Structure formats: C-alpha cells, structure tokens
C-alpha cells in the first residue's frame, strides 16, 4: 500500500473528517457563548442589570460564566481527543506497520 492509498483510505478520511467536524462544532459553541454575551452587552443592557443576588447582576454572573464556559470547552476538547482521536490515530498507525 502506498502512502497515497493510505491517506485515500476510508479510515484515514474518516479521521480527518471527524477531527474537523468536532473542531468546528466546538468553535460554533464558542461563538454562540462569546458573541451571545457581547450582543447582550451591546443591545440588552436592561437584562444585564437585573439583580440575581444582593447587588450581583446578571452581567457579572454572565461575564464569569463565559470565562468558565470557554475553559470547559478546552477541557472537553482534550477529553475528546484523548478518548476518540488518539484511539483512531493509534489504530491507523497499527495499519501502517
């Protein structure tokens, strides 16, 4: 099997497709979280000023939530890559030998 046959194999193509599909889904979630927040700041100020505790506003909670959410997305990616992507890579490396 030549290198080109290998990269053209369904298994290899599946690896590439899975990798980018997952990445772009994660990127889309990040966009929704971050730009959702920014557009609330720009257009719905009243909502951000709603109090959820004694002098703690929705805005303050959301700001922290966006940071924690972004952080969680990176952790989810690492967990996914360790569990799914690396397994596929290992299996492909086996085939190559």
């Amino acid at each position, binding site marked *: 099997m030549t290198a080109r046959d290998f990269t053209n194999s369904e298994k290899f193509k599946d690896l590439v497709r899975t990798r980018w599909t997952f990445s772009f889904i994660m990127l889309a979630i990040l966009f929704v979280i971050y730009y959702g927040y920014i557009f609330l700041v720009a257009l719905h100020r009243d909502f951000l000023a709603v109090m959820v505790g004694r*002098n703690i*506003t929705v805005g303050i909670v959301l700001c922290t939530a966006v940071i924690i959410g972004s952080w969680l997305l*990176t952790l989810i990616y690492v967990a996914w890559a360790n569990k799914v992507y690396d397994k596929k890579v290992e299996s492909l490396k086996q085939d190559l030998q």
Partner: protein
Amino acid sequence: MQSTLGQPNGTAILFFVLVVIFTLIITYFAAKKTKTTSEFYAAGRSVTGFQNGLALAGDYMSAASFLGISGMVALSGYDGAIYAVGWLVGWPALMFLIAEPLRNLGKFTFADVVASRLKSGPIRIASAVGGLLVVLCYTIAQMVGSGKLIQLMFGMPYEMAEIIVGVVMLLYVLFGGMLATTWVQIIKAVLLVFGVTVLTVLALAKFDFSLSNLYTEVVTMYPADNMLNPGGLVTSPLDALSLGLALMFGLLGLPHILMRFFTVPDAKEARKSVAYATTFIGYFYIVIPIVGFAAAVLIGKETIKGIDAGGNMAAPALAEMLGGTPFLGFIAAVAFATILAVVAGLTLAASSAMSHDIYVSVFKKGHATEDEQVKVARISVVIFGILAVGLGILFKDQNVAFLVGLAFAIAASANFPALFLSILWKKMSTQGAVWSILVGGITATVLIILSPTVWVKVLHNEVAIFPMKNPAVFSMTAAFIVAIVVSLLTPEPEAQEKFEDDKIRTYLGIGAE
C-alpha cells in the same frame, strides 16, 4: 493614605534583584544545554505540556493585562471585565483550529508551516515580515508601557528602565535561548498568579469574603457611575464583532505564542499545554476584576487617578494599602519580572523570523551549518534587543495604546488566514498565500490609521475616516477572500500533491520534527 509609590522602594529592589539573580542562574544552566538551533529556538523539544502551559500563560499575562485591566475596572467598572473576557476566548479557538497541526508541521516558526508545501522563497518572506510587524508593534507597546510603569513604581528614570530591561532580557535570550526564556516565563507566571491570589484574598477579607458586600460598597460609593453595568466600551454590534474577531483570531497569529508549540515533544503535549494555559489565564481574568473593584472602594478613584491618570497603579496601590511596603515591593518586582519575560519571548520570536526564515531559508536556501545558524540567531537577537530599547526610548512620549490593537489586527488578518488555510485547504497556492498576507496586513494597518484610535487621538484630526475601533471584520474577511480567489486563479498541482503527502504528518504526527 500616604503612598510611597514612585519612590525607590527597598523591598521592591531586593525582590527584583532576587528574581534577576535566580533567573540568571537558570540561564547559566540552560546555556549549557543550548548548542544547536533546535535547542536555541525550541528548547530541544523537551518542555512538558504543564510547563509549556505555564509559559504560554506567562507570555499572555503581560504587565499590561495585570495592571491595565485592574485599573480599567477600578475606574470604569464593568467595561474592564468585558475586556478581560475578550482576551480569554482566543485560547479555545487556538486549541480547536491549529495547536496540533501546528506542532506536527512546524520546526521553529509558524512560517515553516505556511511554507511547508508552497514555494518557499516568497511565502517565507511574506510570513516572516507579517510576523515581524506583529512582534515589533507588540514590543514597542510593551517597552513604552513598561518604562512608564517602572518609572512610576521605582522612581527610576525612564531611559534607565528601558536599558535594564534590554540588558537583562538579552542575557536570558542570548545565552539560554528558548529554555531559559521558558523558565523565566514559568517563574514569572507562578509569581504573578500567587501575587494576584494573595492580593484578592487580602482584599476580600475587608468585605467578609462576600462579593455581594464588595459590590454593595461599590454602588454606595459611586451611585452615579453605574459601575456594575456596561458603559461605553461596547455600543455598536458591528464594532463588538470586529473587536471580538481581532482578539480571538489575533491570538492564532501571534508569533511568540505560536513558537511555544515547537518546544513540546508532540501534538498531545501541545494540546495539554493549551488546556493548562487556559486554566491559568481564565483564573487570572476571573480574579483581576475583583482586584479592580476592591481598589475602587478601598483606595478611591480620585487617589488612583492622582497617581496615574490611566489607572495603571490601582493594583500596586491596593497592595501597599493591604500588605504595606513589603507587599508593594513584591508586586512591583513581579510586574518588572513580567515585562522582562514578555520582552524576552518577543525577542526570541523576532530573531527566529529574521535568522531562520529570512537568512537561513531564503538567503542561504537552507544550506547553513548548525554553528552558522546559531551564530546568526544570536546576532539577530542582539540587533532586535538594541532596536527594542531604541524604539522604546524614541516613542517615550507617544500615545502607543493603539499598537497592541494593531498587533492583534495584523495577526488576525495577515498571519492567521494564511496559516489556517495552508493547514486546512488543499487548493491554497503560493500566490494566494502571499497576496492574502499582503492584503490582510495592509488593510488592517491602513484602517487602523484611519480609525479614531490613531486618526483622532494620535494625529489629532476632528473626525475619523474609518469609524470603527478595530478593522478585523473587514481586513480578515478580505484576507480570506483574496486567498481563496487568487488560489483558485493560480492552481498549483505540486502544492496540492504535497498537501496530500503531508497528511500523515499533519494528522498522525509521523515524521514531525
């Protein structure tokens, strides 16, 4: 309260000297391991994911974000926190899009990745110039900012501060290369996170560890200022979109950040390092606004503005009030160390672009001996170091706040599209990449000059020709469109073949440096 800020502070000088001695000892040991180019630029690929995570966090948590964001929150409240959020969101994007392929395809610089399957000469020059422009803007902003901060904190003359930063960081980079630069960053990141944590705990102790109490005090003290709600930072959605794009994708085009991915052994460690970096940076940006709000209450806006109109001294002033002169000394020394470390990383990135991308790959066509390469690398370090100090002194009284925005805009518009498409898109051609870098870089620069930040604030014109604060939404889009259109017009079968050949390396890491 009588502040000793701005006077020579014994503790600060002691701590600073300790940090410098300690980091120079590390440099001494690192120097023994720095003989080859791979050791000089990539620390022999021996850095672990955790260490690299700390070093990445160190590169990103500059004195500007520590002192700047806490000051911004102290003076304008919630807007400062919005800014902090924007600085973080690039990290997940970096992880999803380029961290792993970058590690697998690159050698020393991101230009290696762009050039790997294209005609080396033109694309190397274009991406090295794009990289150098970003590093240069960033460095001038850091040097000018740091000179002023050191002047404020230590009462030291501006020029002397610049020269100390220049000489010490040259010692790290010149002798210890990437290994020493990485360790300096790690030490500084740990000190900074520790210092900020102590500062936050001491501050919250004044409010019975209740954020509610803190915010109540803020509202009581500044009833008219609406500190807890968004102010003027984000008003137009398009402007917000543009700034968000620049902050998010600018990170993916910063050469000194990208360079760190070549110091870890493989893609798995690269991935881990982003997760660790995001953890430290996320924690830092959650905590920093609390420091700012506490400073507004405990020190008072007027006093903070009295020390420095930009609010940059909010955190040091709070440190002095809560922990006395010794704690102020510690925080000041950490801020100084931060500047040294960030400038060292930038210098190394500039040197790799000048010597590896331009001298070795273009002039010597890749035929240079190991000794020659290391020698050229060191010479370019000295040249860039002297240039940095010189420009720092030259721009002393200039308003350079726009330079960080410019660095991010060029990074997002010139470097990121070319890098991203060359990893992902088979049909990318040499012409497409070169034109994309040129169009992205030039559009970003011209629009920033015409924007309010430069046209009105620096050039003192009445009305800005380009109304937005950040041009990324236009310049980045333009770079992508040009890359796609030109690549389709100039098909390059060899590059497409090479793209297929590189796939095993890109996705499996087989054959990576």
